[in-house]
């Protein structure tokens, strides 16, 4: 019989070893796939490396790709540490981008020093409110957060579609499409380095990770979040207002997801459209899980995902690997990572049945 039991702690060395092994196994399996396709493994991996870390520009591009994932990963960490299974990162990210854009409509020619903080704040309020709504539904009506967050993801995405499809936010001057006009320059997140679009969203994401770490590890709220995950009944008997904690967690998680939307829309694409954000929220859940529900771990996982995304791009363009193999390789690596994350969180034992 196989038993699966949660580990108390695997230790950071064991975790690191598990993920390095996952990386090696993932690449080995990918190499087999590339060989089977007749393409050159060295050329493919060479291009992957070049895209991930091969040049200063490539590194910066990897950081750009990692930025929204850090935010949605952190959103996952905050919610999941409290064992609130929010799947709403995607919708909250959209809500954040939408509220940020809505605020920008009233800012006209305001200088970026004024406009950007207001846009960020508006986005956080929007994402936080959406998260808070799910928290309120959970605490007030016992609505399962998985259901409410998933459903609200749809609602928000379709609300954006309504606004963009011939609605008040539709771009003028180009053929009708689901996108806003290009933003004025004062609404662009300032760039940090030259022509590569590494913007202030990246240091903001690192700062958010540090704040999350401090909250979880060093504050009474962090204790409540962790305790909520372990035993909410005990927490209630201790006199903690669990309803308040759930609401705070969901608002925080929503606000963090919203920052991913701001980062991607105001930092990279400079116009609001749904397709450029699609999937970043869901990927954040994987990032948070692989990061061991630890803010620092989530940052590392997001950086890895960013490097992999940019490396895959180079691999598709510069090598002769069939285009369909690139997402397959990403999927293989992801499977090995998820397996490693299960192994570091759970102990799998084979127990022989005792015959009496």
């Amino acid at each position, binding site marked *: 019989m196989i038993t699966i039991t949660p580990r108390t702690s695997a230790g950071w060395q064991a975790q690191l070893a598990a993920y390095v092994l996952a990386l090696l196994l993932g690449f080995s399996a990918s190499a087999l796939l590339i060989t089977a396709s007749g393409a050159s493994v060295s050329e493919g991996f060479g291009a992957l490396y070049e895209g991930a870390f091969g040049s200063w520009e490539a590194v910066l*591009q990897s950081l*750009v*790709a990692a930025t929204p994932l850090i935010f949605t990963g952190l959103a996952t960490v905050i919610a999941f540490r409290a064992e609130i299974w929010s799947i709403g990162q995607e919708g909250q990210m959209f809500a954040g981008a939408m509220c940020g854009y809505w605020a920008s409509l009233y800012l006209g020619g305001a200088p970026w020093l004024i406009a950007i903080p207001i846009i960020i704040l508006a986005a956080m309020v929007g994402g936080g409110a959406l998260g808070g709504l799910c928290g309120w539904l959970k605490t007030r009506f016992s609505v399962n957060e998985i259901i409410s967050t998933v459903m609200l993801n749809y609602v928000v*995405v*379709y609300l954006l*579609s309504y606004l963009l*499809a*011939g609605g008040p936010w539709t771009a003028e*001057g*180009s*053929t*009708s*499409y*689901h*996108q806003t006009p*290009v933003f004025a320059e004062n609404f662009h997140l300032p760039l940090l380095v030259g022509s590569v*679009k590494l913007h202030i969203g990246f240091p903001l994401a690192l700062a958010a990770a540090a704040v999350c770490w401090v909250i979880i590890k060093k504050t009474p709220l962090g204790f409540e979040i962790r305790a909520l995950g372990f035993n909410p009944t005990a927490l209630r008997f201790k006199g903690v207002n669990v309803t308040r904690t759930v609401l705070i967690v969901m608002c925080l998680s929503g606000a963090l997801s919203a920052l991913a939307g701001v980062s991607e829309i105001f930092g*990279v*694409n*400079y*116009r609001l*459209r*749904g*397709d*450029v954000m*699609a999937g970043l929220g869901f990927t954040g859940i994987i990032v948070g899980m692989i990061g061991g529900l630890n803010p620092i771990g989530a940052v590392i996982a997001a950086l890895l995902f960013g490097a992999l*995304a*940019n490396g895959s*791009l*180079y691999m*598709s*363009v*510069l090598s002769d690997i069939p*285009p*369909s193999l*690139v*997402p397959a390789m990403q999927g293989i690596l992801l499977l090995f990572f998820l397996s490693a994350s299960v192994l570091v969180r759970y102990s799998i034992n084979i127990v022989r049945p005792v015959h009496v």
Partner: protein
Amino acid sequence: MNIRKHAAIAALSIATAAGSATAEEPTELGIGLILATGPEAAWDATLLRDLEGVVESAPHGLDIAFKNINGKWGEDAGDAMELLAKSGRYQIIWAHSSYSDQVKALQEKYPEILFVLVGAGNEGLGGNAYWVYKRAHEPSYLLGVLAGRLTENNVVGVVGQFPSEDVNDQINSFFAGARSVNPEVQRKVAFIESWYDPAKAEQFTNAQIAAGADLTFQMVESFETCEKASIMCFGNYVDHGETSPDSVVASALISWTEDINWVIGEWYDYAANGTPYDGNTSEKWVPMADGGSALSSFHAYEDKLSAELKEEIATLSAQIASGELAIPVDLSLPTSD
């Protein structure tokens, strides 16, 4: 004498060199494709199919090689375009969707490369950026006529991708066709908010069927749902009747061959003759009469449809081809009744 001789030789050499420069015709062409989805989506699959056909036909005697980069949007697509441009292996970068933001950022940096933008959501950039548009509203009108004739309860559905111009035009023409022969037709319109998502397509098709639709125009390629529900469907972009003969009555087909040949011709003129690029700034599309779109055959429904209906469709097709029947392009947002 010597001076004259040398001058004559020099003049001859310069003339020969200049002559050979203008006469030097390119023999190879690399095309980099940026696809929003990949060969699994009909929009992209039709381009790859037609490009392979053009490669076979070798226009201008060119040895053409192409590479497709799948599933790229926004800045990822821009980065991919720049990598293609930097590699020096691609003279044409065909960005098969709304990528004008990305092309705008690159077109001056790579003036020798011909960029192609496709469909709605773009702006005409001109110069070395050409804009290909695809309209399939004419065959969609014919599908609508079929739907109007075949529906039993007068509830007809459409499951579309996004409400963008080059989707709206097809839906509006489809219903215009249906109502031209059956004014009682009620419209059911849904968008899955994705360019390719079979799972969502199935959900929305089921919703259309639950809402009473006994015929649906499947712009999103989910035909198993129609088969399970035993309803007739219409396909889009590729001939889905070949693969789903039990449910697909006919499909609105598109072809990129004319567009690809036009773009290659423009590049060739630039490369061989030095003619400056002159990209179009307004939509350019190839009508049904010139092969830009078509109605598929009826496959398994050939024997199931009445001779009168087939005759009616053939007549309308001929009228569209001759220009006798003009199908207006209606870009308004289609809604359910």
